[in-house]
Every structure is written in C-alpha cells, then in structure tokens.
C-alpha cells in the first residue's frame, strides 16, 4: 500500500516518458490520474489507520509491528564488512500519527499541484516527469522509516525542484534555483555524516546488527554506550544534534537560514510554490519530530529555550518582513516563515498541547498556504503583476475571488472558526504552560498582531476602495450599464474559472471544517504525540542513566 502510494507518480512519469511530447493533454491526464489515485490510497490508509497505536518507537520487544502501521519491511542491502560487522539497509516503510497527517496532506497538495499546472505550456512532458519525481520523493520522505531510505528520498527532491524552479520560473530563476539547491544540500551533507555516525552507534534490538532503522534509533537503550554518538560521547551528540537541526531548519526555513525561500517562491511557478509551501517546508519540521529530537532527547531538552527563541524570531521577523513587501507573493512567502515559527514554538514547548499544535499547524499551514499561493497565481495570471498597489477595489469586480481570498486571508491570520486558529491556540496553550517557553510565548503573541496587520492591510489595499490610476487593469462600462474589469491580454473568465474553483473550494471547505471540528486530524495524531512527548521527557532520560 505505502509502496504504491510512493511510487505511483514515478510510474506515471515513466508512462509520460513514452508519450510523445505533442500530446500535452494525455500527459496532464496521466499525472492527474496518478495524483488522484494517490489521493484515493491516502483515504484508504486513513480509513484503515488505527489511531490508538503510538508509533515513534518500537513496540515492546523491539519490533515496529504494533506501533507503526502499514509496515513494509524488506532487506535491501546486506553486506558483510568483516571486522566492522555488516551493513544492513532496509526498505522500511510505515506510518504513525506523525506521518499519516503528512501523507494525507501530500496527496491532497499533489492533486492541487497537478491541477494548477494545467496552464503550463512550456515543455509539458519534462515538467510533469519532474513533477512526478518530486511527488514520489516527498511521499517517500514521510513514510520512510530507514534513515538511509529517508536520505535517498530527501536528496531526490532537490534535483527536480532545481529544474522546476530553474526552467519554469520567473526572470531571476537561475539564481533562485541554485540558491535553493546549495542551501538544502549544505544542510543535508551534515545529515549524511550524522547518519553514518548513528549507524555505527545503534544496534537493532532484534537482530543485534547495526541498523539505519529510525525506529530503533528512537529508543535510547539501543545505543552502544561508547560509540561515536552513544550516550557517553556527549560532545559529539550535541554536535550531531546541532548540525541535524540546522539541516532541517534550512528546510523549515528558520531564521537565519531562510533567505532562499522568498527567492525560490518569487521565481517559482504557482504550482511549485504550492508544493514548496504546502509540503516541502513541512519536511523540515517533520524531520525534527521524527529524527532530530527523539534521537537526541537530552540535547533537545537542553535547547528548548533556544528553539523557542528562534521560533519567536521567525514569527515576528517573518511578520515584519511581510509587512514591508510590495510583492504579494513575497508577502505570502514571508508569512510562511512567520507561520512556521509557530511550529517551532510549539515543538519547543515539549508538551502534548504544544506538539499537537505544531503538527496540526503543519497540516493547516499546508492547506492555507496552498490557497494563498493559488490565489496569488490567479491574479498574476490575469494582471501579470503582483504589486499590491497596482490593484484596488477588486472586490466589486471579482466578488467570488474576493470571497475566497477573504477566507484564506482570515484563516492565515488565525480567525476563530477557521483551522489556523485552533493550531495556533494549541501552540500558545502549550508554550504558556511550559516554564521554559512562557516568556517567549508572551513576546510571540505580538506576531499575531503583526500578522493581522499585513494581511488586513493588503486585503484593504487590493480589494477595497476604488481602482487606482496606475492599476494593472482597466474598467469598461458594459452593455448592462455596470462597470466591468478588463485585463490587457487575458482571454479567460474574469472571476475564478471552473478549474480554479475546483482547486480552491475543497481547500476552503477543509479549512472551515477543520476550524469548526478538528477531531478528524487531531484524533489521528494525539497518541503519537503523547508517545513523542514521553520519549522526549527528561524523566525517561534520567531513568536510562
């Protein structure tokens, strides 16, 4: 099941390879079918998922069964290394509460991504092959439970992303693409070293061999005491934690490693922005929750305050930057940085409320930001500009668009009744109830105020009032005597067309529904989060020593 959901897109990519490049519609349909099939599988997995199993670590006895679900475990490489024991790499997939939410999110965003790729005309064949490769890599990252396999998927994302930004991007795409590539690779090469170090430090409790299994690595009793990343080697454990954290933080992106994100977003085509903000950024925080924190819990406990402060900087700095932007897409990009800061703050709270809030915020941010970028794409397609002050009074001319924008904008600023509110509330509840992060949380609340400021201000400038003299569109008096909007070379429907509605309405429904009744998602993740909090708690650590 999981193999299918991971490799369906790549199969679609192979099919597309055989289709002649002139058959654009077939290529699009194949990709869409693969994405929908992925969605169906995600729903099936969701239906079959038992929310009471904890995940994170192995069940009693060291086996992942009974803790993880939908496990697929095959030996991949078994190599005798003589005196060094043997090299064991497994093809090991499985889901728990952390990953199932992300699997559903990825499947959803993939469908949206394919739909929003429909208007792309340049090298359609190449585009969808790369898109499908990216889709496989993202899904693979979320379900891989072997560090080696995770790393392969993690790195596999970079090349398609590089080309997708680099070929189909805006005017400054070369710079943005290589910057993205270099930043993420810089983060991940350290991960490679930590991965090797962990391999030599951890043994599988069942077989006794060294292992790359993340499940085995998540239990501190599986570490060899004097190994390079074993409990005795405090200095290297701190170093490993820090470089892993930086590697994941680059993806989040966390201040001061965030500068690639605005560039990448501004240059990327709309669907890639959606994927980037909707799924890729989550891989950073997912990596922290799956790998970085549970593998080094004592270092995590020691650095809670630092992580919280970094989260707060993200929240407030991102909001300030967003406030200053003239380019709507850049504003949304910085709002992403700000919102990912809440995730970091929730994680730093290190209690159930905070962590649940963090994971729920990851899901909500995925859906909300996907909407934001789609909406930016809608107006950019029509007006060929994203400058906020080139618009004005749009609400009277594009009422449906204005309504959807309002939902998305308000969800983003955390209005009660919409999903963003619940996750942010949980984050703050968690952060206030933790002694360490309380002060930071108080400061971070300011972020909500600034968030409201830039969102409302942009809404006001673009949608309220009248057309500005230098606006990116004209007004014409139609046959019915009313004024109509007119974009210079836009032939399509002026307000949202059917394809755009198909993408936006489901997202809006999800955002509203999960704002009123969050239990479908929260119910799935609580037992895993409880387990994670337990693994990370200082009590467990002291018991081990």
């Amino acid at each position, binding site marked *: 099941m999981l193999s299918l959901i991971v490799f369906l897109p790549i199969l679609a990519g192979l099919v597309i390879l055989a289709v002649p490049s002139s058959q654009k519609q077939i290529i699009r349909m194949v990709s869409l079918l693969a994405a929908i099939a992925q969605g169906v599988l995600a729903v099936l997995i969701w239906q079959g998922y038992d929310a009471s199993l904890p995940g994170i670590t192995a069940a009693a006895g060291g086996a992942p069964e009974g803790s993880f679900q939908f496990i697929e475990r095959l030996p991949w490489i078994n190599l005798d290394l003589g005196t060094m024991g043997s090299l064991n790499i497994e093809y090991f997939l499985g889901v728990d509460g952390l990953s199932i939410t992300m699997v559903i999110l990825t499947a959803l965003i993939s469908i949206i991504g394919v739909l929003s790729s429909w208007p792309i005309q340049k090298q359609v064949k190449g585009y969808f092959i790369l898109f499908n490769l990216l889709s496989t890599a993202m899904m693979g990252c979320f379900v891989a439970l072997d560090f080696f396999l995770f790393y392969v998927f993690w790195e596999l994302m970079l090349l398609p992303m590089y080309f997708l930004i680099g070929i189909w991007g805006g005017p400054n795409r070369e710079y943005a693409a290589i910057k993205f590539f270099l930043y993420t690779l810089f983060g991940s*090469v350290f991960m490679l070293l930590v991965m090797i170090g962990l391999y030599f430090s951890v043994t599988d409790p069942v077989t006794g061999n060294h292992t790359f299994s993340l499940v085995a690595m998540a239990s501190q009793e599986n570490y060899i005491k004097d190994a390079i990343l074993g409990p005795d080697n405090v200095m290297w454990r701190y170093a490993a934690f820090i470089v892993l954290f930086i590697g994941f933080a680059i993806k989040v992106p966390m201040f001061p490693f965030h500068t690639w994100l605005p560039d990448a977003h501004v240059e990327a085509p709309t669907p890639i922005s959606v994927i980037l903000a909707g799924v890729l950024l989550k891989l950073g925080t997912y990596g922290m929750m799956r790998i970085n924190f549970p593998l080094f819990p004592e270092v995590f406990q020691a650095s809670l305050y630092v992580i919280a402060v970094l989260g707060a900087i993200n929240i407030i700095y991102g909001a300030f930057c967003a406030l200053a932007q003239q380019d709507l897409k850049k504003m949304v990009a910085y709002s992403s940085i700000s919102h990912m800061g809440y995730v970091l703050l929730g994680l730093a709270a290190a209690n159930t409320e905070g962590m649940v809030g963090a994971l729920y915020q990851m899901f909500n941010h995925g859906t909300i930001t996907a909407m934001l970028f789609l909406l930016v794409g809608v107006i950019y397609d029509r007006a060929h500009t994203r400058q906020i002050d080139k618009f004005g009074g749009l609400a009277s001319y594009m009422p449906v668009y204005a309504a959807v924008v309002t939902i998305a904008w308000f969800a983003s600023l955390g209005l009660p009744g919409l999903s963003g509110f619940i996750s942010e509330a949980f984050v703050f509840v968690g952060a206030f109830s933790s002694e360490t992060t309380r002060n930071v949380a108080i400061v971070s609340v300011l972020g909500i105020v600034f968030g409201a400021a830039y969102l409302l201000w942009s809404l006001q400038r673009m949608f309220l009032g009248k057309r500005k003299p230098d606006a990116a569109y004209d007004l014409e008096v139609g046959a019915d005597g009313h004024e109509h909007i007119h974009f210079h070379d836009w032939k399509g429907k002026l307000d949202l067309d059917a394809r755009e509605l198909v993408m936006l309405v489901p997202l809006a429904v999800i955002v509203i529904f999960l704002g009123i009744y969050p239990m479908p998602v929260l119910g799935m993740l609580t037992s895993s989060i409880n387990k994670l909090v337990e693994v990370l708690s200082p009590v467990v650590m002291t018991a081990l020593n």
Partner: protein
Amino acid sequence: MFELPSGAEIQSIIATLKTGVGFFIPEIYLSVLFMLLIVIDLVVKGRKNNLLSAVTALGLAGGFYFIYQQHLLEAGEIFFGMYVLDEFALFFKYFFVLSGILAVLVSVADDQLNRQARSIGEYYALIVAMVIGMIMMASSADLLMMFLSMELVGLTAYVLTGYLKNDPRSAEGALKYLVYGAVSSGLMVYGFSLIYGLTAETNIMKISAELALHGYDPLVMMLASLLILAGFGYKIGAVPFHFWSPDVYEGAPTPVTAYLSVGSKAAGFAILMRFFYVAIPHGGEPFQDIAGMDWLSLLIVISIASMIYGNVVALWQKNVKRLLAYSSIAHAGYALLGIIAMDELGTQATLFYLLGYLLMNIGAFYVVILISNRTGSENLEDYRGLGRKMPLAGAALTVFLISLVGLPPTIGFIGKLMIFSALLAKGSVFIWLALIGVLTSVISLYYYMLIPLNMYLRESQQPDEGKDATGMVHRIGIAVLMILTIYFGLFFKPLLDFAKISSSMLGMTIY
C-alpha cells in the same frame, strides 16, 4: 668478483621463469593484441578505423576470459618477486581492461579524433599498451618493476596526449605532461634509491621485513616517502603534483582525457596502495616510534589540499574539459580518504570509489564528446539550450554530474558514503576530514550544476541546426552507462562485495 651461475642454477632460473609465465597469461595475451593491431594497421594501410576499433574492443573483451582464468591460481609472487598475482591485482586487471574498452568506445564516438589523426592504427595499439602498463603497475612488487611500468604508462600517455597533430593545445599538453612526468619520475627514483640505501632490497615485501628488523632513520624515511609520493601523486593528479592535469586534460583528444582521468589515475592509486601498505605499513608494531610524522600525515595533507583546491578552482572554469580536470583533482582527494582510514573498509571504499568514478567520469566525457561533435566546442557557453536539442545526452550528463557531486540515487553517492563510513568507523579521529569532504562536495555542486544550468535553463543563441546526429551505438552506450550509474546507486552490493574481496594484498601486514 662476479661468478657465472652454474648449470643447475640456470636450470632453476629457467624453471622459475616457466612457472611465472603461467601466471602472466593476460599480459602476454594483451601484448599479442598490441602487436596484432600494429600488423593489421600495416596490412590494411588505409583508414579502416572501424575495423581497428572493433578488433581492439573485442580483443580487450577477450582479455576478461584470461583474467577470469587467473581466479583459479593461488596468489603468489612470480619472476623472483618482481611481480605478484593477488586479488588486488586481479581487481585492477578487470578495471583497466574495462576502462580500455570504454576508451575505445569513446574514441569511436569522437569525430575530431577520427578526422584529424592521419593514421588511427597506432592510437588503438597505444591504448592497449597503456592497459598493459597499468596492469603491470597494479601488480609490480619490486621498485624496478614499479618504475618500469610507470614509465610504460607515462610514455604511451605522452604520445596519446599529443595525438592531434594539428592542434597546438594538444602538443602543448603533451610537452607539459612529458616535462612534469620526467621531473616527478626523477624524484620518485631518488626516493626509491633512498629506500634501497636503507634496506639494500628492491622487493617491497623484503623492504618491509628489513625495515621491521633493523629500523631506520625517520628523517630519511620521511624524505623518501615524500619523494615517492611525488611520483605516485603525479599519476593520481593530487595537489601539489597536479600542475600538468588541466592543460593535458584540455589539450588531449577528449577520449584520451577520459581514459587518463580514470585509467592512469586508478593505476596511480593501485601502485600507491600496494607500495605503502606493503613496504611501509603504518601503525604496525615496529613502526610505532615514528607515528608522529609519516606518510599517512603526508597523505592527509595531500588529500585535504586536493579536495579544497580542485573544487574551488573548478568554480571559475569556462571550459568543460578543464572543469572536469579540476574536479578530477578533487576526486583524487576523496579517494585518498579511504586509504587514510587504513583498514579493510577503507581500501574497499577506495576501490569502490574508483569503480564508480570509472562509470560516471567516462560517462560524462562520453557526452562531452557527443556534444562537441555537434557544436565543435567544449565551452560552457556553447552548452546553452542543448538539453532540448539532445534530450538523451542532456539527461545522461545530468545523471553523471549528479553522481560526481555524490547525490543519491547514484553510484557516486554510495562511493562517498563508503568513504565517509570508513572514516567515521575509526571513531572521532577523522571526523574533521569527513567534514572537509562533505563541505567541498557542496562546493562541487555549484560548478557541476553550471553544465545543466546552461543546457536546460538558458536558451541557445544560435538557431537550431537540425537533428541530433548521434549514432544509435552511442545512444545505447550513454543510456547503458546512465542506467548503470543509477542501478549501482541502488543495488550496489555486488560491486561492494567485489571490492571487499579485492582488498586483500599479498604480503600485507596491516588490517
């Protein structure tokens, strides 16, 4: 006074030689092939390039059979300890014959070479001669034999580099290669003579025993190691013995560049490993007194300098061949890391790395040749928009470059993974070396990606000049290399097992 050997002694010498010949069949076979090629060239007297290349490729492929037969033989010394046959040597025999076949394949692809060279005959003969030389480098166990085999490789390489007689860059490269080669050979021979002065032996196993028995002056040993490293370092193209490589790589016919970058470099690694592992093993009991400053420290310095210098200088290159030349300096640095680990895992990692480098670097040069057939240029500027005009070549080159960076799922990633694993398996001593290794590979990403950047992200200035004229053979050729690069990145067990078996060397006292 020199005494004439008695009859019985002569009988025994002849008997030893006769047994030795039985262990020497692949080399003899290749020598016959070498002469056959010259004869064919004389007989057909025309430009029957296809015939010659086919005979060479098939002939070399036939060599696999004779090498395979050697697995049945016991590892041992032959010709009075001049030459050895062991798993390590067998690995390199396969390696060099394979690299020879690939060199023939890329030579066939190169229009420039086939147009310019008046008679292609000696060209293929020289390629075979170089295979023989490299095999002998990997199997020599005696200082004299080591020197002779290195000269055989060197001399054929000088001629091959200058094979484009009408191209001044080719001549310049050949001359530079010759001059640097002569100097480094001289230094190496001086180092050999110091070793001989210390031990009065030329066989590396006897040298080792002698050093262990009587000890030595560390200062002299240090000097000798440095001088010998100059010779070996020149072959592997490591800093500071790299000065020849950018000019030679740029000037030489591209197939020769490809061949030198994998073959001659690997031969350098083979001889370096055998000499230092066997003759001056580091870390064994008798040598603990000089653990402070020795050849291992020298290798560490060379390796770091190569990784940093090669990768950083490559950033500014505008010519793809030159760019790959600098990157090959960096790759020498990475492969050295495995030797520095000084254990079975490290040796295995280095051997695997060389295999991976063979695939991906020949592949990259292969595509460079096909592209230059079309554009007549190796400048980065002229790669603009090629990704769309030559889709297969573009995709393949991207895969090879990704592999050279060391990203999964390619063989280059597994190579780097094994190298860094070997370092980290030693505990925390070599972590900083591994750090330099990974950081420099981030640098390498930038310049390697310049090529796909030009191919895919930028549009060509010239109008499209028609269809892709690449022949079917070469399409299949690059496709196979590309698929192997990915396949062995996912299922690398057979190659790693092969590298593991091959890491045992005759007369080695470490591990």
